[in-house]
């Protein structure tokens, strides 16, 4: 229970203690880490991949890699969150490279966010489709920043820490990512 409190009350709890327990593969600590970071990692992965099943597998893979790395002493020495999300990003980039994506590929209906559009609103679904297609065409780094900032909802400072960049750099990145997204969406309609 103490671990739970530790992980949920401070942004940077006594990470040293947590990471030490992680290396020992202590069940309670592993469980606590999972509980603390699963929602964010999953949201991030699901946002990037837009597929719940793959997102589940990739998310589990992120934590499995954490265990493997920790056990052999290659785990994060600090900033666990950054390690997790960067790892997720790498796995996703590899996955996307392998899975051929044709830019004109239409996204299956099931993946559209039907739950959030009033039934029968074709226009809304069209907008969503345009967004997702355009998003898929962004560079990995642009997708990354948008997934962190809007998919998970991190603040600019958190994104900066995760990406190991300055907040100014991230401000520029997010601007450019949104601008690129907007251009692609326009192209979709033209």
């Amino acid at each position, binding site marked *: 229970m103490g671990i739970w409190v530790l992980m949920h009350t401070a942004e940077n709890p006594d990470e040293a203690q947590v990471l030490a327990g992680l290396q020992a*593969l202590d069940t309670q600590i592993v469980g606590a880490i*999972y509980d603390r970071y699963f929602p964010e990692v999953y949201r991030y992965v699901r946002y990037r991949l837009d597929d719940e099943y793959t997102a589940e597998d990739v998310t*589990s893979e992120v934590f499995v890699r954490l265990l493997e790395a920790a056990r052999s002493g290659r785990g994060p020495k600090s900033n666990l969150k950054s390690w997790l999300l960067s790892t997720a990003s790498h796995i996703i980039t590899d996955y996307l490279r392998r899975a051929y994506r044709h830019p004109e590929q239409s996204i299956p209906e099931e993946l559209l*966010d039907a739950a959030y559009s009033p039934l029968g609103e074709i226009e809304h679904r069209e907008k969503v489709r345009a967004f997702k297609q355009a998003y898929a065409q962004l560079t990995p780094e642009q997708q990354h920043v948008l997934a962190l900032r*809007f998919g998970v909802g991190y603040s600019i400072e958190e994104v900066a820490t995760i990406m190991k960049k300055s907040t100014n750099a991230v401000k520029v990145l997010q601007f450019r990512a949104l601008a690129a997204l907007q251009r692609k969406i326009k192209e979709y309609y033209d």
Partner: protein
Amino acid sequence: MTDLYTALEKCLQAIEQGESVEQALSVYPEFAEELYPLLELSLQARNLGMRPIPDAIRRRGRQRVLEHAARLRQNTQDTLLWSFLSLWVRPALLFGLAFVLLFSSIGLINGSASALPGDYLYPVKRTWENLRLSLTFNPQERQLLISRFEQERLNEIEELLARGRVVPITFSGLVESMMGEQWLVAGIPVRITDSTRLPQAPISEGMLVAVQGITHREGVVEAFEVQLLSANTSQPGEDDDNNNRDNSQNENNDNSENDANENSEQDSNGDAGNDNNGNSDNDGSNNDENDNGDDANGNGRNESDGNGDVNDGSNSDGSNDSNDDSGNGNNAGDDNGMSENDSHNNDANDSNNDNDNGNGDDSGESGDEDCNEEHKNESCS
């Protein structure tokens, strides 16, 4: 003067605080034209991220990760030789044993008899047990064997605890005492933590439960999940979405074969049937992502399939309803607590099915019903 990028960020923050796009931009009229479309886009970007996370996904992943950790811990103890041998020797042993058993009338020399979950020879032991059971046709003898094996499960766990080994396990038994977070189930100390999933119905002493968790160095089992077992061993149904994942139904009720209560070590899927239970409402740590609704649609392992009925009289779970309707495979559950979740219904059910749930409330009756079942660990009066 603020630059364009900072202005964008400031507007984004203002929108996060609840301002409209127009309000946010009013501070930066010089950038309004350029930023307006981007801010509108950011709204859409944010909306797409806001769907809830199905709880079943969280649970499955958690079990998977914890088991992986347990396996990694075990592996560091094995020597390289054992790892190599396990590729060849164990299957050979399994085959050999089956052969010997088939062709001998006694065939009871069993070198794996003392193996514990997580041991190299443990699967051999379980296979041996299953073989014996499948070759026992007399119903009384079968019952006896089943009880012995169930007791052996408990012994194994106690041995694991005594040795301080850490292994994922599953077992079932009667709740003997509940002191805050320390329970005693079938003589085994079980620790309930914040992240233990408990059924929606309150558990009390004397109830039959299934515990899924991991043995701990300190000599307790840390529970990941506790399920109420009804007298009717309801099977979590096959579910469309879960097909590829939870194939090995860890039916925590040992109806006939013992292998139902699997130690998740053997479960190559890594899924120790997490989703057997899961009235996700209860679990305090899950509140945000809680999705009974989602489960009804997708995962179908709808919760309280029959388990919920065990509740003393007031099966008032809305979740029971959503259960049956979507017909997500769990038809066994359907007989049990349709919608009127009240004792009235339980009584009706009881008259239909001898094996029916109604455990909690029909005091005298439930006792009998328990006794109908194979779970004869406990005394049936």
